[in-house]
Structures are given as C-alpha cells and as structure tokens.
C-alpha cells in the first residue's frame, strides 16, 4: 500500500474518533441501552471485509473463513438493527402534563 495512504487512514481514524466521542456524549441517557445495540449493529460493518475475502476466492480456506465471517457479521447486522428498533418503538412521550 502506498505510504501516503497509511497517513490518510490515520487521519480518518483520528477524525472518526473525535466524531465518535462528541456524538456519543450527546446521546440521551434514556437511550444508552439502544445505543449499545446500535453501535453493535454498525460495527458489523466488518461484513465488508468478510464479503471481499469470501468473494475473492483466493483459496478454499480463505473462502471458508470469509463465509463464516459473513454469517457472523450478517447475524449482528440483522439482530442489531431489529432489536434496537424494537426497543426504541417502546419509548413514548406523554400526551401533555409534566
């Protein structure tokens, strides 16, 4: 990989971490449990890597490992988003008063 690209990746990492800290600190305390399951689903972005490895079919072992990784990630994606939404649907605002 080009030297230059290492540095741009470090930049992305640094900035993304800043964004992460700021964004998470603003998450309502009410929603910390949904937050856990949502970040969970998001970090299942690992599926991207898994797909690439599986799709390349460089070697049988690689493909196998990749396929398992795909299955694992997809599980996280599906369950993560579904359960988060399920939890959030329960949060209702009171009509009036208080």
């Amino acid at each position, binding site marked *: 990989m080009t030297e230059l690209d290492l540095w741009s990746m470090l930049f992305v990492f640094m900035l993304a971490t800043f*964004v992460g800290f700021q964004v998470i600190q603003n998450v309502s*305390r009410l929603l910390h449990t949904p937050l856990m399951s949502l970040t969970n689903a*998001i*970090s299942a972005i*690992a599926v991207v890597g898994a797909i*690439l490895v599986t799709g390349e079919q460089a070697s049988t072992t690689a493909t196998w490992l990749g396929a*398992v*990784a*795909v299955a694992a990630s997809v599980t996280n994606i599906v369950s993560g988003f579904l359960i988060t939404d399920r939890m959030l649907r329960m949060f209702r605002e009171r009509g009036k008063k208080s």
Partner: protein
Amino acid sequence: MTANAITQISYLLAAALFVMALRWLNHPKTARRGVLAGSVGMLAAVAGTLLAPQVMNYTWIAAAAVIGIVIGVPLSWVPLTAVPQRTALSHAFGGLAAGLVGTAKYLVWLDHGELTQFRTGVIVLEVLLGFLTFTGSLMAAGKLQEVIPTRPITYPNQNLVNLSLLGIAVVAGIYLVFDPAFSPAFWVIVVLSLLFGILLIIPIGGADMPTVISLLNSYAGLSAVAMGFVLENKVLITAGALDGSSGFILSVIMCRAMNRSFTNVLFGAFGQVQAGQAAVEAKTVKSATPEDVAELLQTADRVVVVPGYGMAVAQAQHRIREIYDQLTKRGVDVKFAIHPVAGRMPGHMNVLLAEAEIPYDALVEMDDMNPEMAQTDVCLVVGANDVVNPAARHDKSSPIYGMPIIDADRARAVVAIKRSMNPGFAGIDNELYYLDHTLMAFGDAKQVLGDVVKALSEEVAAIH
C-alpha cells in the same frame, strides 16, 4: 474505475449515515430515524462491496448471509432482560469475524508472497483484538446467562500468568512483523489471544459484566479499525472508531457512577467482596403490608419511584405502570428517579419502564431529581439498593463511598420493596432500610406491587 467509484461513494455515504444515526440517538423523538439511517448506510456499504471488482463469486456469500439472517432474526426477539447477553454474544460474533478475516488475509498474502511488514503488523493487531474479543465476549455472555459460574474464578498470581501470556503473544507479533513468512508465530498469536480472552474474563464477577461488555464493545470496534487498515478500507475505520469510542465512553460512565476504576473492575475480582459481606447485623426495621403502602401512596401529593435491579429481576415494570395510572388518575404527581447505573446495564431501567409504556418524560435523571427529594411525600424504592444507599454520601469506610446516589432518605416517607434484607450488587448493608421514616414491604416486587394495585383499585370501588 466506475465500479470502484460506485463502491467508494457507497462507503462515503455509509460512513456519513452511521454518524447521523448516532447523532439522532440524542433524543427519543429522532432515535428511530437513527436506526433507519444506520441500516440504509449498512445496505449501501454492502451493495457497494458486492459491486467491487474483487468480488467474483456470490454463492458462498449468499449462503452465509442466509445463515446469518436465520440466526439473527430470532436473536432480536430475546426478552429485554436478556439484552446484555445478546450484546455480549454479538460482540463475540464481531470479534470472530475480524479474527477470521485477518487470518484469511494472512494466509492469502502468505501464498502470494504479498506480506509487507505493515500488513503483517496490522493483521497481528486485528487477529489479537478479534479473537480476544471473541472468547472474552463468549465468557461474558455465559456469565450473564449464568451457564458459567458468575462468581470470580481466581487462582494464585493470576494476573502474572495472564500478563505473561499477553507478553508472549506480543513478542510473537513483533517477531512476525520482521519475518512475516514465519507462520508458526502467527498461529501462536491466534491461540494465545483466544486463551487470553477467556483468562481475562473468568476472574471477573458476573455483576461486573456490563462494564466488561462495554469494554469488549470498544475492543470489537478497534478490531474493525485494524481490519480497515488491513484492507485499506475507510468505512471500516470510521465505523470501528465510532463503535470503539461508544464502548469506551459507556464503560467510563459506568465506572464513574459506581465510582470504581477500570483496573478495579478488571482485576479487582469484585464479586468476592459481595460474597464476603453478605452477612447483615440485626437491626430493627418497620415492615408494612401492601395495603399500608396503598394507603400511604394515595394520601401523597408527590411520589417518586426509584426502580433498581430488583424490578428487572421481578419483571415488575407493568405493575408499576398500573400504580402510576391509578395514582395519576387520583391527581398524585408521580415521577421516576433513574440512577445512571441502576440495574445491570446503562439505561436498563429506561428500557424496562418504556416497555411498560411509561412516558419517557416521566423518567427524571438522578441529578435533576435529588434537589426535589425533600419536597417528596413518598419515595417508593422498587428493588433498588446500592443506588439509594446513604452510606455513599457520608461513610468513608464504605466500598461505595463517593458513588453518586439518589437521596431517597430525604423524602418524607420511604417505602422499600425487596425480598429480604440481603444486600445488593455491592454486597453491603443499607442503612436506608433502618430509618424511622422507612417502611419495608418484603416480597417479590411483582407480587407486592400487584397487591398494592389491588388495594388501590378496591379503594376506588369502595368510593363508588
């Protein structure tokens, strides 16, 4: 070129949507939009990847995806009490995926002799974090599900052993960077990180698992970041960093609210203290029947409910909802005081009460509620213990001294519902129960509250 461009655009879009998803979690009103944004982003990223030129065969992918869906959908139906286990489990999956991809990449590049030092270095990181998270999270899930003994499993100079294992793995890693082709070193790392994940968790008490899974959450994020460096993929780095910071912040919040340090959580074998201190000296408490409680509640103007872990165990939130309805019908002002670490995971109480359809604007954070406690007629403590223990304010010798608490004791009258005089998570006695203006209603929270509701509704019946 164009294919690649599409892929890259989809990644850019996905990253932006992930950030927005988390931003929209800052208020329940917009939160569901956040989930939508997140899933759209994920779809975009997946679609973009499938279009990438490297991807030549889809059958395996499709098959694996189907399996994933088949496992994933039911996993999303778990009862809310099992959410911590589910979270731990999915960290395990995340770690596994990272580890496997890293391994696959290592093998492929090894064949093609494309292992640069940089690549090897980041692969080592990815594999280490990935597999460590995998076994560690499995352990955590096991303890939370109580299929594994939840008490800390300790043995002489444990930390020494663990650290030396980690040391060996690191050495192997460094060696591998200088001689990437020496695959034995790689397998050593794999095995050691799997082992290390287990050894790291077993000495930690089951009740500390929430903090642990938050930490594992950030490890999972970091392993995704490492994967991003391996595959030179920026959306992986971004999403991983978001996940990593989230896990980190949550565990900090928990430690702070329990006023303990990371090291204490990770190496303190805290659960033992619990076991140790469970003995309670005999002091006198006033106990009350559900009818007394009902009486007390409906004569009050302001009632504050403090839910705790016990409410979760008893699944008593729906009874609480009924009481809330009964009292508000009578014009009593009912609020809920939520402690940041009430229950066993951050936001635990909020989700349960929301499940019982209690409006979230009746849920008040500790810091906003405490000032109003003195003007409160009745404070109803439902299965909460440590988070209302006044010792945290004044008793320097107490293990929870300094932990911010809800000042239940400052209310005009306190009603505490629990099954016994047993201590809570911290394993210490709670002087709140012995105060003159405190009434104990012993029994399972669901049971007791059910009787209270009955008493209240009979009241109504009587009136008409």
